[in-house]
């Protein structure tokens, strides 16, 4: 009998959500005056922007029209800013320029202003959603745990820095443990998920058996493997 060559298993792709600190700038018309204020600011605090990724919010500047927005973005570039994303753009505004390829869907949350005092009040570390998460809705909460009192629909997603608790059917996606070493888990009272992820490990529904379908389940990461187990 000929020896069958063993096919190497393909390497697992590890996709991982991480968050980074970026600065957000919102240029305001009239842009000439805004730029002169910016230049003043740079002279006084050049270090603030040095080597920092920058997200530009175009909501206000877009009112000036496409030409002004392009000149403004080029102006930022020539000052050495590293623009990594754009917010508040509208369809067609940047078509045909290299800016059109910039990411515009940026998850994140407001952090207090850069020079805010360190005694700023503590942000909440858990989020409770009373009611179902509907298809197409995305709940992103990086600061801690998310609890959903209701179902997470097919086509909906919940992404949490910590654990996720679903008191209802989990039919969409749940991704827990975005923060490293969070020891996160996912709990649901009925497992019908499309995809689950904990601490950079992901599985789609085809990877777990029908045995868990419809049952109360917990999902955790255990020594580099995703473990799903029934709770009932």
């Amino acid at each position: 009998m000929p020896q069958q060559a063993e096919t190497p298993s393909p390497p697992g792709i590890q996709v991982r959500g991480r968050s980074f600190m970026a600065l957000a700038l919102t240029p305001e018309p009239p842009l000439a005056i805004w730029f002169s204020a910016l230049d003043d600011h740079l002279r006084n605090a050049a270090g603030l922007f040095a080597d920092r990724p920058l997200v530009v919010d175009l909501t206000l500047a877009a009112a000036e029209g496409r030409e002004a927005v392009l000149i403004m973005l080029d102006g930022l570039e020539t000052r050495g800013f590293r623009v990594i994303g754009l917010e508040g753009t509208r369809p067609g505004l940047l078509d045909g320029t290299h800016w059109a390829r910039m990411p515009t869907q940026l998850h994140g949350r407001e952090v207090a202003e850069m020079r805010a005092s360190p005694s700023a009040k503590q942000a909440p570390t858990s989020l409770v959603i009373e009611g179902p998460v509907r298809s197409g809705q995305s709940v992103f909460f990086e600061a801690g745990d998310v609890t959903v009192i209701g179902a997470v629909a097919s086509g909906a997603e919940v992404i949490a820095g910590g654990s996720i608790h679903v008191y209802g059917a989990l039919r969409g996606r749940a991704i827990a443990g975005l923060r490293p070493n969070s020891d996160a888990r996912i709990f649901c009272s009925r497992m019908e998920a499309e995809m689950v992820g904990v601490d950079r490990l992901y599985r789609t529904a085809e990877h777990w058996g029908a045995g868990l379908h419809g049952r109360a389940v917990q999902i955790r990461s255990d020594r580099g493997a995703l473990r799903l187990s029934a709770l009932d």
Partner: protein
Amino acid sequence: MSKVMVVTSGKGGVGKTTSSAALGAALAQAGQSVVLVDFDVGLRNLDLILGAERRVVFDLVNVIQGDAKLPQALIRDKRLETLHLLPASQTRDKDALTADGVERVIDELRQRFDWVLCDSPAGIEKGATLAMRHADVAVVVTNPEVSSVRDSDRIIGMLDSKTVRAEAGEKLEKHLLLTRYDTARAARGEMMKVEDVLEILAIPLLGVVPESPDVLTASNLGAPVTLHNPAAPAAKAYANAVRRLMGEDVRDEDAAAPKRGGLISRLFGRRAAA
């Protein structure tokens, strides 16, 4: 107190326009003054279902743009004198609708009618969001199949976030109207069951309209099914749905429930989970 009601679904072809016409006619048959507003600019259909296609002179876009006064564009039904139609424009597209213009027209219609029924286009874009924008009540039309149910779920999420009421933190009544339901096929597992759909969407059930050739026949004759054949099971389902909308406690759903089964009747009594 007048009510603005949007008939919506996300997915196309599930029966929004047919249901709008049937619900509007049934409300008028119950003595209410009703205007049906066709928001499907560019794909105007409601005028056909109501048999008014040869009476359209001015339309919603003309009124929004100030080219015509509202009374010039309203078409009164020839069979039911309290039923009116504000048709969509067939030659324009959804961009011709403006938020301010829609608000002005809806406000004016509120002054004149008990019920303002907004027939939403399919999709989740401008036409659909403007149709739901000022609603007090929403009827979510769903077929018993997975893609329709998921799209309805998406629309319910938008009703809870993008309407004037939702933004003001007020309650928006949402009702499920399950159409093209076939009890026998659902029993054989070829179609989703009423309780499965309710379980996923978690909003109260307004009615179950059985799959029926009467509906298509009526549409092709330019008559809402409640007018064309009031005895048909589908027509009864719409009539009962309207009685529920008007606050009556209607338990019987003889249209879709088999004789022995009180199941669907029981589902009507069930409160939504959220």
